[in-house]
């Protein structure tokens, strides 16, 4: 496994470099109009290309900041800022991560619980599923402020409202995946259980659950990404309480594009780390379950 990790260093590097190169190209393309209007206002003509590039890569409010601008901002707000203060991205990442983690755990448990109900109870299957689906079509950002307001009026503020929104977004992929997973055992494997007159719980723990494990991990990967989105969405309406969401909001409110991108980078890094962690868990579990090497 370790050697496989090493094998992927080269490809990842190549792809990342390709993306960065492309990014620079787009930086030039997207920021040129503004740069030209600046030159026009200053009556500058025939600016040498080197000067032009230097200016394009050093704009205050670029449409697309150059990678190195984002990197500098990222570095400044991660390494050079005191992690105890709102100037530090780590501070915000931690706030968001705690809401994400809480929401993800709730969401996964809720999702599995609902899937169990749906698989074991016909009435639940028929009546619950359509409404679970409908619930997901409710635009969360629309009700997020109301959720925040309502919860605040009963005294719940801070982590809980965000975690709830995060739960709301993450339980769905888990329900869908786990219903499929719990129903994935072959008929003959279920028949075997029938011949033992195994109880519902026994069929569940000894057959449905292990058979659903591959589905669980795939769903959890999607679910954790959704959780993070939920936590960030939950931070938007109360834009002042900290977290990556409020950072994104403030960045766009005060026109600090580079700051938005740094926060985005942090959010993506968080998400990737969470997904990676789940992937690791998946490898370990599947190995313990005798998957072919």
């Amino acid at each position, binding site marked *: 496994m370790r050697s496989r990790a090493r094998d992927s260093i080269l490809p990842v590097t190549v792809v990342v470099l390709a993306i960065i190169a492309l990014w620079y190209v787009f930086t030039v393309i997207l920021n040129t*109009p*503004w740069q030209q209007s*600046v030159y026009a*206002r200053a009556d500058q003509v025939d600016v040498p290309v080197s000067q032009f590039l230097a200016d394009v890569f050093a704009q*205050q*409010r670029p*449409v697309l900041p150059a990678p190195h601008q984002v990197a500098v901002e990222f570095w400044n*707000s991660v390494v050079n*800022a005191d992690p105890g*203060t*709102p*100037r*530090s991205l780590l*501070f*915000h990442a931690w706030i968001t991560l705690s809401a994400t983690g809480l929401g993800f755990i709730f969401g996964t448990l809720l999702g599995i619980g609902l899937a169990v109900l749906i698989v074991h109870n016909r009435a639940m299957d028929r009546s619950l599923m359509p409404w679970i689906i409908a619930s997901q079509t409710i635009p969360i*950002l629309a009700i*997020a*402020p*109301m959720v*925040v*307001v*309502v919860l*605040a*009026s009963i005294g719940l503020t801070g982590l809980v409202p965000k975690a709830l929104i995060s739960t709301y977004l993450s339980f769905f992929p888990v329900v869908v995946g786990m219903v499929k997973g719990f129903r994935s055992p072959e008929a003959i494997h279920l028949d075997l259980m029938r011949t033992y007159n195994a109880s519902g719980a026994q069929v569940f723990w000894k057959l449905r659950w292990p058979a659903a494990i591959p589905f669980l991990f795939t769903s959890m990967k999607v679910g954790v990404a959704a959780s993070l989105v939920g936590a960030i969405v939950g931070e*938007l*309406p*109360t*834009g*002042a*309480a*900290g977290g990556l969401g*409020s*950072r994104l*909001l*403030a*960045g*766009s*409110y*005060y*026109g*600090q594009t580079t*700051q938005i991108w740094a926060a985005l980078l942090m959010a993506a890094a968080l998400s990737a780390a969470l997904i990676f962690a789940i992937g690791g868990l998946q490898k370990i579990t599947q190995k313990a379950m005798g998957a072919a090497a």
Partner: protein
Amino acid sequence: QDMYPLTFQLKWVNQGQFAGYLVAQDLGYYEEAGLDVTINPGGPDIAPEQVIAGGGADVITTWMAAALAARERGVPLVNIAQPFATTALEMVCSEESGVETTADFPGKTLGVWFFGNEYPFYAWMAQLGLSTDGGDDGVEVLRQAFSADPLLQNQADCISVMRYNEYKQVLDAGIPEDSLTLFNFADEGVGMLEDGLYVMEDRLEDPEFVDAMARFVAASMEGWAYAEANPEEAAEIVLANDMSGALTLESQVYQVNEAAALVGDSPALDVEAYEQTVATLLSAVSPDNPAITAEPEGAYTTVVTDAIE
């Protein structure tokens, strides 16, 4: 002795716009007045009127048009004080747009803030007799998001700005002031009162509450006075209350200065300005702009400001 607990809901995130309150809190003016105040920042999607209706706040700050609209929708808000005496809402048009006067508006794209902030704009368009459905004779309306970007990127011809915030962003971006055309809503005759203090009507029957409010307003005005005198320090206090870490001192000093300039000598509501706001709103009733349809009754009171004297 017992402190009177108060929850105060802002309309927007902590920034220089609310410097007076933040200063009063930070320097202990509220505490001295026997108040235990919690200031809840707002955000782009928090409607303070909804928060107070749900019992999440005792007093809120919001624009008068939004408050009157809420009152008509069954949230009995009452204005108890009006710290901001003048209007800071403006519309700014870029040089490229070619807009010099309101006569140039037809066929242009204008950025507007919604979420209860759109009433002045629709009143203005009604007054100018311009349709807001696009086309050559009307204007195209964009729901403008948080920043001044649509103007900088030429996505809109004109955008809404607050004098104390987005306008400075436009200038900071390097656009020379003389290339811009600025419309002040008050000058156009559609000015409406901005940040005022509102409470639920039934609470005013409680004399203790009225007394607490009087102390709250007085302490807040003290805060504003301090902020006006010490903008640097007030900006520092604002920054200390900013949980996003995105504000800069420079922008907040500017904002405190501009906001403090809006604060009148007395917190008492200027009834004439109130009546003008109502009249403007009523003159522009349309399906797009259903702020209020009838003259409001009892939408303001002077008991609190009277008690301060």
